[in-house]
């Protein structure tokens, strides 16, 4: 059944997040040959419409308004509902990010529709669209179908592959003007801590430190390794609570959910709430001085030892490999 599917593009620091391109790929599958329409809402976002098309959208709609400069649930739901009203889609895809988690259930509530959240893969099987998502803090998975109405999902970043960018691809872009009123929540201040550089949820390599890192300075060898591998530094709650690093680095149930190709856990014990945020990583390496640490149960490779001895050696070894590869 061909469907028209909307994808909400998410803007950060003036560009679209990767998860938006992954959402287009998911929308293609859901559309079953129908139309994929990209949507971007913000203060000045018309320049971003083309990117959605290059990544596979057939058309793009932009909604610009002074009150959409920052995400608020009231502002963005009015913008998106206006697009939904004018487009009458049969499907909607968003990222399962802070924004998507906040907005999607409200839209689903308004439309009286189902919503499948945090999807990690999807397929067409036996005439149904089947969505897979983690449950029980990542210890199990469920396959779900939509039994009635709109096909509405949010996707976990870094799990569904985006399509190849096609710079020659063209499509119609249009803008929709909306009235935004009655903003009931006002953002007074934003303290941005999220680290510059690589977005943790999109990083291919993550070097994460836990309480075993022992101090703020203790993160230095992790940063060096991350730099050599072109990766990002993350942390456990334990390290954040102890003030060794900022909470924006936290990985886990209350922090970021990540799915890198390589996750190196240093001085992290492997509590379930931490595993919930990283156990889907493709390859996990654990460095911990306690051979009984739980993290070894999910690790593909483990080194039992002091991270302050292991990391410098590892960094040197990777440097050598890089030199010989060049």
């Amino acid at each position, binding site marked *: 059944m061909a469907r028209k599917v909307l994808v909400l593009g998410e803007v950060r620091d003036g560009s679209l997040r990767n998860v938006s391109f992954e959402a287009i790929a998911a929308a293609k599958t859901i559309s079953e040959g129908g139309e994929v329409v990209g949507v971007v809402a913000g203060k000045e976002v018309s320049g971003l419409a083309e990117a959605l098309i290059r990544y596979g959208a057939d058309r793009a709609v932009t909604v610009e308004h002074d009150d959409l400069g920052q995400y608020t649930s009231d502002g963005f739901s009015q913008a998106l509902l206006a697009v939904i009203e004018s487009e009458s889609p049969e499907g909607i895809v968003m990222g399962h990010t802070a924004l998507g988690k*906040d907005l999607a259930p*409200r839209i689903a509530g308004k439309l009286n529709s189902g919503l499948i959240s945090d999807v990690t893969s999807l397929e067409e099987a036996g005439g149904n669209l089947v969505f897979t998502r983690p449950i*029980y803090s990542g*210890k199990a998975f469920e396959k779900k179908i939509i039994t*009635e109405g709109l096909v509405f999902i949010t996707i976990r970043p870094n799990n569904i592959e985006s399509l190849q960018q096609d710079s020659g691809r063209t499509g119609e872009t249009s803008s929709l003007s909306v009235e935004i009123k009655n903003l009931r929540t*006002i953002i007074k201040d934003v303290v941005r801590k999220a680290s510059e550089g690589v977005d943790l949820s999109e990083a291919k390599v993550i070097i994460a430190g836990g309480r075993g890192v022992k101090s703020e300075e203790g993160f230095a060898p992790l940063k060096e390794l991350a730099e050599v591998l072109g990766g990002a530094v993350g942390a456990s709650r334990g390290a954040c609570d102890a003030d060794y690093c900022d909470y924006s680095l936290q990985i886990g149930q209350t922090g970021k959910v990540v799915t890198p190709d390589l996750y190196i856990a240093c001085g992290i014990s492997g509590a379930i709430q931490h595993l919930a945020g990283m156990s889907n990583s493709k390859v996990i390496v654990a460095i911990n001085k306690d051979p009984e640490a739980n993290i070894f149960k999910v690790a593909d490779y483990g080194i*039992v030892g002091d991270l302050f001895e292991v990391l410098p050696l590892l960094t040197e070894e990777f440097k050598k490999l890089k030199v010989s590869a060049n």
Partner: protein
Amino acid sequence: MNIYVLLKRTFDTEEKITLSNGKINEDGAEFIINPYDEYAVEEAIQVRDAHGGEVTVVTVGNEEAEKQLRTALAMGADKAVLINIEDDVENGDQYTTAKVLSEYLKDKDADLIIGGNVAIDGGSGQVGPRVAELLDIPYITTITKLTIEGQNVSVIRDVEGDSETIETQLPLLVTAQQGLNEPRYPSLPGIMKAKKKPLDEIELDDLDLEEDDVEAKTKTIEIFLPPKKEAGKVLQGDLADQVKELTGLLRSEAKVI
């Protein structure tokens, strides 16, 4: 102040998870108050103690959730309500739960509704925002601080590690993020008192709802455990050799670098 807490009884995911007949095996499993809802209960009690009023804890579930409701009463909540729809509804999802909760709440004149930001078992994070939308009140998710003065509310919200300070007004729904507070343990006198506190049970009928009104829009067709990972390789020998072996394995075997 009229405060409601949305509380879910959840499987303790620290436990080992197994399947039986294609379902999560609950035999002998430990059930708890969803940890994020514990923060919600604690916050509700603190707000009541500062501003007066009453805390009512509400669950959609079956009789087995009475235990978690009693725990919330023992922590200090004033009343509990179990909306037991087990006999009326066969297939439920987040649409169902939110619809039932909002029908219950719609004539309660709640000033403040507090839920968790996510349930550790179902993990969708949908129920809070859905309920707020159905009640047509504002909501703020993943909060780490709540300050109330009269009708004015100031909230700090965690957004992927950034923090936003947001101002709004009651009535309001918020969802708790870790860091909001340290939930108290029920005290012995608290546990004794909880036994006498009201725990009402209502059904779909009491909400003037029919099964059709709350029928799920989604359906779980299969539950599976992730493919069992082969025991990881813990490297042996001299540290320098281990490191060489590891980089070699990451390149040739795992092919991630």
